[in-house]
């Protein structure tokens, strides 16, 4: 049976070039970059070059790139690190209601520790209104943290505009760009951001490695206290192979972005068109055009997401859902609820996130098997039964 990986927003496969770039640092060149002898110097060089590379690809300076263990650490560090420095100046933080849990749960933690957090609403497409940001800023606002692009529904936020407002008002601005970096053009200067989180495994790089961009001049407390690594701001022996892989993956992603995105947008729109034509009672979640090239998110009425995933899995198709049942929590995705879906419809969502390796043939196979799977679940659903009865009345 063919296997079709449609869950690239969860994680991606590593590119061969990335593995090849990492390999030497697993074996021959394994030294601790903080040491002074030869093999350590090679490591230090690889570290410096990776930092330079990433900085350049983001329009930043090398000294502004700090390596971390991934998106979650970057988000936690940015938010807690800024809150810690400015807690005497103010205790108000602005974020949105559709952030990743790495941001939301960090904000909730701070709320329990004396901070006040405003969770801005989003419109039906999942967009934050920059005017809402402006209105929410108060004298005691010390940080705005709004994600670059959403991981569930793919909606891209008006980051430049929000950044401009933050700048004018003199409020520090962090963006969780974990889903954006390597997928759409991101330039820290143009985006007017002070801090930006990214994670390697979201663009065909290694898991367990990410970075935080910290604009020159921004004060931040460390989250991981320890050795003098990362200019004294983040302790821990550097994960050199991981960092080299991160840089290589980002380089490849940016180099091929235009070409890949052209192809992916075509495939994305082909699938969206196919599904909406073939299946009734379906709704595309997220912004119709201002969305990530890899993201498709549907709600199928009357059915539940986990069942849908299981049946797709049986056909070799790997996707994801905002259903509560897939997360083990009681509520379905906070993102889908935030864009106004009622609970029962949020439970019936399907997220397809494509990669540059997906083909039109795979899309066709998916479009072929999906309608009968959806129908099968509907035929089993008491909600569908009710709907039909009401219609026939």
């Amino acid at each position: 049976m063919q296997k079709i990986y449609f869950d690239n927003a969860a994680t991606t496969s590593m590119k061969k070039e990335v593995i090849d770039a990492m390999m030497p640092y697993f074996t021959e060149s394994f030294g601790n970059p903080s040491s002074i002898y030869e093999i350590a110097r090679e490591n230090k060089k690889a570290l410096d070059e990776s930092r330079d590379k990433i900085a350049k690809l983001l329009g930043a300076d090398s000294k502004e790139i700090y390596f971390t263990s991934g998106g979650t650490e970057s988000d936690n560090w940015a938010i807690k690190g800024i809150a810690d420095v400015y807690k005497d100046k103010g205790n108000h933080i602005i974020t949105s209601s559709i952030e990743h849990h790495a941001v939301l749960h960090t904000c909730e933690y701070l709320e329990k520790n004396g901070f006040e957090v405003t969770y801005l609403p989003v419109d039906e497409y999942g967009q934050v209104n920059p005017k809402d940001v402006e209105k929410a800023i108060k004298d005691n606002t010390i940080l705005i943290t709004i994600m670059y692009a959403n991981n569930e529904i793919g909606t891209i936020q008006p980051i430049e505009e929000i950044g401009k407002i933050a700048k004018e008002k003199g409020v520090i601005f962090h963006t969780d760009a974990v889903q954006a970096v390597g997928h759409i053009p991101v330039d820290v200067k143009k985006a007017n951001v002070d801090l930006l989180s990214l994670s390697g495994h979201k663009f065909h790089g290694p898991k367990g490695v990410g970075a935080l961009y910290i604009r020159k001049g921004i004060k931040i407390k460390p989250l991981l206290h320890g050795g003098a690594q990362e200019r004294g701001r983040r302790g821990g022996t550097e994960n050199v192979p991981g960092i080299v892989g991160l840089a290589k993956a980002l380089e490849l992603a940016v180099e091929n972005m235009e070409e890949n995105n052209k192809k992916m947008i075509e495939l994305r729109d082909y699938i969206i068109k196919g599904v909406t034509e073939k299946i009734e009672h379906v709704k595309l979640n997220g912004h119709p055009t201002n969305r990530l090239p890899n993201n498709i998110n549907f709600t199928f009425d009357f059915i539940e997401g986990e069942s849908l995933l299981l049946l797709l899995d049986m056909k070799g198709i790997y996707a994801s859902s905002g259903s509560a049942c897939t997360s083990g929590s009681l509520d379905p995705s906070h993102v889908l609820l935030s864009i106004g879906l009622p609970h029962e419809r949020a439970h019936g969502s399907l997220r397809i996130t494509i990669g540059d390796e997906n083909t039109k043939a795979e899309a066709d196979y998916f479009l072929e098997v999906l309608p009968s799977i959806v129908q099968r679940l509907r035929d089993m659903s008491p909600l569908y039964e009710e709907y039909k009865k009401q219609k026939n009345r």
Partner: protein
Amino acid sequence: MMYSKKVMDHFMNPRNVGEIENASGVGEVGNAKCGDIMKIYLDIEDNIIKDVKFKTFGCGAAVATSSMATEMVKGKTIQEAMKITNKAVMEALDGLPPVKVHCSVLAEEALQAALWDYAQKNGIEIEGLKPPKSGDHHHIPENDE
């Protein structure tokens, strides 16, 4: 989360899916807000469950427990059916992941709701049967920390 082979079999090939017209008793529990609804139809004759069907909106475990629970009551007396607990359904499925235990509870409740409906319609009393609960059916697995 990982399902047992039995769960996957009952999910992929659910037994007794459907409706019964003019059923002797119908029970519906759960709600769409929480992501699962189970509706069980019973055809009862001479105290025997002659036929049973279900419709379920829910996850793999919800479907599988519905399927297994209906299988387990088919042909049984009402009194036998009353003894089928969520634990029995789970065991028959070779277990469920902790976060899915509530699905088996739902299956037990749906069955009892259908029996309750039957009892109400026929003005009889079934020993041990309580009126169906409404509202949140979720049993949140306890955190052991």
